[in-house]
């Protein structure tokens, strides 16, 4: 994974609440067996509306989305994260995220920044004219107008994002601990392995 530290540039002033995963990437795009190429389907339904932010040339290729509460609710499809990556998005700022989406985003190196609604309102306003800057190391979001919002992030996620670390590899290094658990558990729950059906 690419290490993430600064994300800087124009931001889609989206602001919508309860953006579900069907809005981010409709089901018919889930048939792919690859992680690439999903950007074309991102926000497909919204893009049919004239004047939508995603087709506005001011924001073309913007690396940031500023959204409302409960971003990414709905299904567990990781395609939502892949679609955002494919459209060039590296960070989403919102007052809250669905648990599954923020996990998927993190695992794909997308930064999810939680800020209160007042900050979101301000950032939506700024985004229509100016870039926004996210500094992961210092946990701040800033604008060219001296706005400075501090955000919290899980320290493990922060270090993985900054180091570009692969989670599967990290866990595989704990193979001995997992094997010890399996031996102990086989005593405690000998019935666990399913009968061959």
């Amino acid at each position, binding site marked *: 994974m690419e290490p993430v530290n600064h994300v800087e540039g124009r931001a889609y002033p989206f602001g919508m*609440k*309860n953006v*579900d995963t*069907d*809005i981010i990437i*409709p*089901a*018919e795009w*889930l*048939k*792919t*067996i*690859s*992680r690439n190429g999903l950007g074309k389907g991102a926000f497909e*339904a919204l893009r049919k509306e004239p004047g939508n932010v995603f087709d506005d040339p001011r924001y073309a290729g913007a690396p940031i989305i500023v959204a*409302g*509460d*409960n971003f990414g*609710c*709905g*299904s*567990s*499809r*990781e395609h939502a*994260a892949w679609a955002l990556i494919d459209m060039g998005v590296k960070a989403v700022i919102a007052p*809250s995220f*669905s*648990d*599954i989406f923020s*996990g*998927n985003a993190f*695992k*794909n190196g997308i930064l999810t920044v939680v800020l209160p609604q007042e900050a979101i309102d301000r950032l939506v306003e700024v985004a229509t004219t100016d870039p926004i800057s996210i500094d992961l190391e210092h946990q701040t979001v800033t604008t060219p107008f001296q706005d400075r919002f501090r955000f919290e992030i*899980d*320290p*493990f996620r922060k270090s993985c994002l900054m180091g570009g670390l692969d*989670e*599967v*590899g990290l*866990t*595989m290094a*704990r*193979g001995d*601990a*997992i094997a010890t*658990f*399996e031996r102990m*558990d086989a005593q*405690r*729950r*000998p*019935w*666990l*392995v*399913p*009968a*061959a*059906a």
Partner: protein
Amino acid sequence: MTDKPRTLYEKIWDAHVVETRDDGTALVYIDRHLVHEVTSPQAFEGLRLAGRKVRRPDLTLAVPDHNLPTTPRLDAEGKRIPIADAESAQQLAALEQNVEEFGVKYFDATSAEQGIVHVVGPEQGFTLPGTTLVCGDSHTAAHGALGALAFGIGTSEVEHVLATQTLLLKPSRTFAITVDGTLGYGVTAKDVVLAIIGRTGTAGGTGHVVEYRGSAFRDMSIEGRLTVANMAIEGGARSGLFAPDQLTYDYIKGRPMAPSGEAWDRAVEWWKTLVTDEGARFDKSLRLDATDIAPNVTWGTSPEDVIAITGSVPDPESFEDASKRIAAVKSLDYMGLHAGQRMEDVTVEHIFIGSCTNSRIEDLRAAAAVLKGRHVADRIKQALVVPGSGLVKRQAEAEGLDRIFIEAGFEWREPGCSMCLGMNPDRVPSGERCASTSNRNFMGRQGPGARTHLVSPVMAAAAAIKGRLADVRDLMGNERG
């Protein structure tokens, strides 16, 4: 461990922690992994690229469901009919190749055991109390009906579980939802879960694991509990749990993958410890009275947009929250409804009985009981009934339910996700309306522009007969109370 009273969730969690890190994140052992065609290809691809194996193929079970067409799968000579859609065919082929290459147990698209992954797990005895169970699908919470800590994961996590049989997790908060009392006539598990989501909203459970408590749930069948836990995610919770009880053991005993003999006795002994201790505390709680719950329908494009069938479309202005007002205006526009319209006056063109929420044998029996000797209304363009698995289908056929559905004007299909989501050929055309027993009424969920009203199986049957959303109690004789 500890003498502090613990909730059911905490007991299952504690039993699966391999190790805990300083920041509170735990490496948690996963006992059961269900795999389907849509969210797994990129995970297997990741293993292949890194030269990794599946750590515990014996704890992994794969079955295709999401994009399989529900039309016949074998021709007259018993030969497999290929899937017409090239991308669906490619996903199915990828799954078949991956289970072969990585040695994972697989139910083929034409086997009797095939079905929706969340119907198959419990039915096979793969889902057991006190296990941690995951699947790359958000409705995995369903398995919590049997006391499994079950939740949906993304494809990166699917890869993580395949490679390591663990996940890195933070403990969740706990949420007790208690429903006491007896459900009214014509009121089902689906109405209970819709009532809950109507109260909590779709974000009410975020960060929490729900435990369903109270007499209404104790009296509920396992299949009803599966319906309730299935929609825990619609209330924002990652998992929903029912403490295992005698009904649970009776349901599991004798299923093909369940323990037997002495192993069974030892398992039950452990399962009996899986109850929330007296004095354990929950982070949040909600109480409902079963007698207040009516047959429900949804009016909008979020599962929280719930109203009793006897009610009317709410006025967006009546919502306190400004964003909810805006969302409601948008929803009503999409749904083609207006404030004040009586729900019973809303006509429908499509009926869907199926999905992992409501496609088990009890669901089909209940819908068939309403449909028996009746026929769908003239305005109904398509009425589908899609059993949750090949075994459910066989059972229903043995009971003659297929005849009742067909004579009533329904199509009797092969098992799969079908019209629950618009990724196989079963779809609701744009601008048309469907009374659906599935779990999501999002914009475009049943096909672009499709309008979905979530209902129980008996309410779907009532809507089919009337050609509009209808109160099933009016069709069930004069026992209405």
